[in-house]
C-alpha cells in the first residue's frame, strides 16, 4: 500500500509540472488557434537561459524564475509580431509548420552555441534532500516544483475566471469571430496572450533545470508528452490541460510501477482511448458546426 502511495505522490508531482508546461500550449491554442510546436523548444530555451544566467552572470534559480519568463515573454511577442501573425488567417497547418521549423532552428542554434552534452545546473539551496514519512518519501524539489506549478496554475485560473482580461480570453477562446462581433478587439489580445504562453513554457524550463538534463534536445521528447496532455484535456481548454497533466503524471507513474517498459506507451493509449470516447478531449467543447 505504501508503495502505491509512493507512486501516486510521484505521479502527482510530475503531473503538476506537466500541467504547468501544457498550460501555455493550451492558452495559445485557445486564443490564436495555433498549435505551437515550438513550445518544447521554448521550454528548452527557458532552461538554457537559466543555466547561462547562472554560469555567466551568477544569477541563481530564484532570479531565473522571474527573469526568464520576462525574457521569454519578449521572445514570444517578437515571434508573434514577426512571424505567427501573418499566418493566422490561413489554415492552422501553416503556423504548425512555421513553429516546427522554428523549433529546428532554435535547437540547432543552441547546439551550435552550447554543444550537445548539456549545461550544468544545481538544485537551489534549501530545496535539496527528501521528505520521508514512514516508508514514503519524495524529494523536496519535486514537492516544490509541484506546489509551485499548482499555485501558478491556480493563479492563471483566477486570472482567467476572476478578471475582465480572463473573461475576454475565455470568450475569444470559445469563438473569436462572435467575440469580435460583440465589440471586442480580439486582435489586441492575441500578442500578449501568445507572449504569456511562451513565458509559461520558459518558466517550465527553469523549473526543469535543476532536475533534468539541460540539452538542446530536451524539449523534443517533452513536446510529444505535452501534446498528449492537451489532446487528452481538450485542445484549448485550460482546466483540461491541468487535469490531463495530473492524469498523465499518474498514469505514467503507475505505468512505471506495474509495467515499466510500457510507461510511455500507456500515456498514448490513454490519449487514444480519450479520443475514441470524446474526440474533443475531456474538457474540449463538443462543437456543432
Amino acid at each position, binding site marked *: 500500500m505504501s*508503495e502505491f502511495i*509512493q*507512486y501516486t505522490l*510521484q*505521479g502527482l*508531482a*510530475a503531473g503538476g509540472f506537466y500541467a504547468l508546461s501544457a498550460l501555455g500550449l493550451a492558452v495559445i*491554442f485557445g486564443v490564436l*488557434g495555433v*498549435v505551437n*510546436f515550438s513550445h518544447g523548444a521554448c521550454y528548452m530555451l527557458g532552461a538554457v537561459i537559466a543555466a547561462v544566467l547562472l554560469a555567466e552572470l551568477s544569477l541563481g534559480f530564484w532570479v531565473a524564475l522571474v527573469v526568464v519568463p520576462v525574457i521569454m515573454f519578449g521572445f514570444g511577442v517578437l515571434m508573434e509580431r514577426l512571424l505567427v501573425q501573418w499566418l493566422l488567417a490561413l*489554415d*492552422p*497547418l501553416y503556423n*504548425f*509548420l512555421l513553429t*516546427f521549423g522554428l523549433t529546428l532552428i532554435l535547437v*540547432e542554434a543552441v*547546439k551550435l552555441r552550447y*554543444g*550537445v*552534452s*548539456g*549545461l*550544468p545546473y*544545481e*538544485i537551489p539551496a534549501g530545496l*535539496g534532500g*527528501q521528505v*520521508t514519512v514512514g516508508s514514503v*518519501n519524495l*524529494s*523536496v524539489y*519535486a514537492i516544490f516544483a509541484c506546489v509551485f506549478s499548482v499555485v501558478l496554475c491556480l493563479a492563471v485560473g483566477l486570472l482567467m475566471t476572476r478578471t475582465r482580461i480572463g473573461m475576454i480570453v475565455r470568450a475569444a477562446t470559445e*469563438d473569436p469571430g462572435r467575440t469580435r462581433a460583440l465589440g471586442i478587439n480580439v486582435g489586441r489580445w492575441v500578442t500578449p496572450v501568445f507572449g504569456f504562453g511562451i513565458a509559461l513554457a520558459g518558466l517550465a524550463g527553469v523549473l*526543469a533545470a*535543476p*532536475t*533534468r*538534463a539541460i*540539452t538542446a*534536445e*530536451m524539449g523534443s*521528447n517533452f513536446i510529444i508528452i505535452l501534446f498528449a496532455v492537451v*489532446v487528452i484535456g481538450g*485542445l*484549448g481548454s485550460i482546466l483540461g490541460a491541468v487535469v490531463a497533466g495530473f492524469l498523465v503524471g499518474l498514469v*505514467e507513474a503507475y505505468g*512505471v*510501477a506495474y509495467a*515499466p*517498459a510500457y*510507461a510511455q*506507451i500507456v500515456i498514448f493509449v490513454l490519449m487514444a482511448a480519450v479520443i475514441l470516447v470524446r474526440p*474533443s478531449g475531456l474538457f*474540449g*467543447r463538443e*462543437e*456543432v*458546426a
Partner: protein
Amino acid sequence: MRSRNTTAVSAIAIAATASLALSACGGAGGPQAAAAGGLSDDKVVIGLLNDQSGVYKDLSGPNSKVAIQMAIDDYKAKYADKAVAKDIEIVTADHQNKADIANSKAQEMYDRQKADIILDVPNSAAALAVATQAKNKKKLYINIGAGTTALTGASCNKYTFHWAYNTAVLARGTAGTITQEGGKSWNIVYPDYAFGQDMNKSFSAEVTKNGGTVGQSIASPFPSDNFATFITKAGEGNPKVIGSMHAGGDLINFVKQFNQSSLKGKVQLAVGLMFITDIHSLGVDQFAGTQFTDAWYWNFDAENKKWADRFTEKTNTRPSFAHAANYSAAMNYLEAVQEAGTDNADTIVGKLEGKKINDVFLRNGEIRKADHAVTHDVYLAKVKSSAPEEWDYEDIEKTIPAAEAYGEANPACTMG
C-alpha cells in the same frame, strides 16, 4: 471550431510523419578502383563517419577529425620523404544516429569519395550497417564509438575492426569489479533499445558470474526525462547497487534525479557507459563517487597528458577516449600502409591482424586475429568529489588487464 480542432490534430499527425520522412536518402554507386600495389588514386582517403550534430557530437564528433589530423601530421613527420602515403585526405559525414543514413553515407564514402577506410561510427545500429558495407565493398572499417559486441561477434567480418571498447568490456570492468568488491545485489535500469538491452544482458551476466544477484532489470522508454519513478522502483528490495545503462541526456536525467532521491548515499550508483563529456556537462559533484569503466583517461599518465595537451591546443577541450582512439586507429592504419607499401585492403588486414601495439591509447594492445577485437588495458574510474582543474574529473582506481577485460575471442564470430 470543429474544423480548427480537427485540422490541428491532423497537423500534429502530419508533422510526426514529416519528421520521420526527414531522414534523407543519399548516396550513389560509382566505379571502383582498387590497385593491387601502390596507392589507389595515388592518395589515402580516411572517412570519418559519426554523429556531428546529435547526442554523440561532443564525445567524438567533429573533434575526432582533429585527432585524425594529428595522426596524419605525426605520420608525415615520422616518415617525411620516405612516407608511402604523401597525399592523405580526411572526408567526414554526419550519420545523425540513423542506420539508414550511415549506410548510404558509408556507400558514398567508399564509392564516390574513394575512402580507403572508415573510422568511428558511434551508435550500434549505424555501426552494424557500416560493417555490412565494408564487407560488401571489401574496404577497411575501424569502429570506435559503438558498443555492440556483434561487431566482433555474429556480424564480424574480415574488414571490420573494433578498437576502443564494447559492452562486454564495460560489464566486466564495472559490474565484475563492483560485485567482487562486495556490491552483490543489483537492480538495473536500462533504456529500451539495442544498446541498452545489450548492456543489461552483459551486466546481468557479469554480476551473476561474480556471485551477485540482479533483483530487477527495468526497461525505461528511450528517450525519457522523468526517471523519478524508475529510481523508486529500482530502490525496491534494497539493492546495494543500482546500475544505470543510459547514455547521453538520459544518463544526465537519471543521475540528476537519483541525486534528488532518498537513495543517494544509501545505494551505490554504477554507470554502464560514461564519457568525460557527460561529467563535464553535469558537473563533477553530481557524479561524485560514481564508478565506471573508462577505456582511456587523458590525465592517467604523462604520455596521455602530453597528447591531451596537443589536442587541447587545437580544440580547447580535453579529449574523450573516443578522440584518442580515433588517433590511435588512424595512426596504426597509416603505419600498416607504410609497412605494406599499399593501401590495398586485403594486404592491410594481413598487416593488422595479430599486431601487438603500445601507443598513447592502447596499452598491452593486440589486434586479435580471431574476432578483430582490439584488446587493451581498460580502467575502473571513480568520479572525483571535486575537480582540481577543469576536466580533471577521474581517479583511476584500478587498471583492468587486457586479458581480463576482453576475455576469450567471441565464438559467434566466424569471419564470414
